[in-house]
């Protein structure tokens, strides 16, 4: 896969279709790739990497990158294409300056899961026949790929690319039985007290690093209300436990109807707070109230919270 992507990127750079390539660059370990822009063939050959640990959704970088001179090539996984479409619908990215290559995806790995299995001192990870061989300074171990799969990928909603200029690999289908609302249903089944206790437990770990907000493709405000000194809520730390909850709840409200459920918020949270559950609750409720809707699926489709119909549920 990496070879095919690199080859195609080199071709498109060489024939002048694009002037830059947005992908991932190699890290210190087998799993710590950083999103990067490559401008030359040498840079690509030196540093371009694609593997099961390239989880980052690159679409948000296009807000900045598509405003620069020249066309940029971006590699998008199926779930990333929903974010791309949503940004397009919100006029945050300039389509003409972007060349999208959709890349097939069977789910990304989460190194935290490997580490939780006690795999410390990782020096190499090799994939073969649905298994990872993980080499560490303490010896090597084989792990089934699905055991290391990121939570969000276990409930993958779609293997279909909703936008692309060309594809590498196969396009898939929307996954209808992804069970992504299972945990939301469990939360709904709780008593209010239990649910409150659950969220207090989770959100009390928040350190207000803003990683969830800054990575979120739906959080693309020029200035966030929480950064605006005139808003009265600009705080860098929670003043009290009430505010600790409110930051995430307000954010979830703000992205409701625009959140594509890409799962980046939970991926980046250094405190392992399952933030995506807040968004999924909104998605589930909107589906129930206004009919099935998937943000980013079709940029021309009217969003449920942005349209009014006589049949709308009042309360």
């Amino acid at each position, binding site marked *: 896969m990496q070879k095919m992507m690199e080859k195609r990127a080199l071709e498109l750079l060489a024939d002048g279709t694009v002037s830059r390539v947005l992908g991932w660059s190699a*890290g*210190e*370990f087998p799993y*710590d*790739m*950083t*999103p*990067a*822009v490559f401008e030359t063939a040498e840079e690509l050959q030196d540093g371009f990497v694609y593997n099961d640990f390239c989880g*980052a959704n690159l679409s948000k*970088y296009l807000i900045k990158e598509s405003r620069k001179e020249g066309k940029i090539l971006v590699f998008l996984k199926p779930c990333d294409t929903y974010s791309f479409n949503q940004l397009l619908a919100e006029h945050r990215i300039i389509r003409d300056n972007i060349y999208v290559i959709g890349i097939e995806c069977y789910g990304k790995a989460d190194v*935290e899961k490997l*580490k*939780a299995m006690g795999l*410390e*001192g*990782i*020096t190499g990870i090799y994939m073969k026949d649905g298994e990872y061989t993980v080499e*560490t*300074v*303490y010896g090597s171990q084989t792990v089934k790929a699905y055991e290391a799969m990121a939570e969000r990928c276990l409930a993958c909603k779609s293997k279909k690319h909703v936008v692309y200029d060309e594809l590498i690999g196969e396009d898939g289908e929307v996954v209808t039985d992804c069970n992504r609302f299972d945990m939301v249903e469990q939360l709904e089944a709780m008593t209010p007290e239990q649910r409150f206790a659950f969220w207090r437990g989770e959100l009390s*770990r928040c*350190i*207000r*690093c*803003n*990683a969830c*907000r*800054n*990575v979120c493709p739906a959080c693309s405000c020029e200035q966030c209300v929480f*950064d605006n*000194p005139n808003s009265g809520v*600009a*705080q*860098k*730390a*929670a*003043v009290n436990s009430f505010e600790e909850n409110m930051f995430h709840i307000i954010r979830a409200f703000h992205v409701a109807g625009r959140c594509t459920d890409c799962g980046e918020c939970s*991926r*980046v949270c*250094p*405190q*392992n707070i399952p933030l995506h559950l807040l968004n999924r609750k909104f998605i589930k409720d909107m589906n129930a109230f206004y009919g099935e809707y998937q943000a980013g699926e079709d940029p021309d489709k009217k969003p449920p919270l942005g349209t009014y119909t006589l049949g709308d549920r009042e309360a």
Partner: protein
Amino acid sequence: MKKLSLAKLNDLFAAIAQREALYLPVDNGTGKAEYTKWQEGTVYSTALNTGRSAKDFFFPQTENLMEFKMEGKRIDVIDTREECEDFVIFGVRACDAASFDILDRVYLTDPVDTYYKNRRQHGTVVTMACGRPAETCFCGTFGIDAADPKGDVTCWTVEDGYVLRANTEKGEALLAAVDGLLTDTDDKAVQAAQEKTRAILAKLPLAALSTEGVGQGLTKELFDRPEWASLSEACLGCGTCTFVCPTCQCYDIRDFDTGHGIQRFRCWDSCMYSDFTKMAHGNPRVSQLERFRQRFMHKLVYFPDNNDGLFGCVGCGRCLARCPISMNIVKVMKTLAKGGNK
């Protein structure tokens, strides 16, 4: 040196906790250990490092500084400082223990930060030598020995128990108070444990990471290096690295209207945030490049400049593990060392 048998670890915790509050790493249920107050039944986690660093004990994320009573034209300043109670932190790793030295140089130099000093005076640090360092560890780069950590008391896990060594008066007082649980021992078992750890440390992927190319006096050479642009390009401008970092010590001071008066508190701040240096008439660090550069220049050049060459990083590896886009100080150091054209 003193010896504690494996079976008596819980007794040790109970004996300490009877005297003063005891905090130690405990699994928080999300696959990470966090410092938690010990009570009967608490299970000590041997995880390599806690998710949040131990700096929280001396430099908490938020703390109240003072209060103001406002009445008509009058303001009363209320000093709310209180003498902190004694406490013990058990299981601090060598990297975090070294971070206290860095924080001390900021907060204990004149004018002393009395809030910090208060907690520092009342806290006793028991370190735990590392037995299973991870690939993200690079404390050795900064001269820290994971097999022989500092602290008031150093503890080693050996085959049939634990060996403890008091390093300070505070440490001696602590061991004296629990002396009934301890027996005398020599340093043979410790040496064996250290040898084992050091052999692993030498095999770690970052074992060869050097500080060549960074350090004291290199502002001019490093500040305008073109690599800052590509290094910072993917940075999200979040505060994860700064907040999990044991040596990041920047803070903000803010006021909060409680309805009964004004509470002035301080909280962690991050040089990665866009409003960190923003003023009414502009911002000297206009883009993420300048903010990103500031964080690493501070740790690798400015702090050493002002502290006899001491680096502002202890190699704990938290930022390597936690950065959402996997950019970190190791990548910065390697890039700067590679591109050097002196």
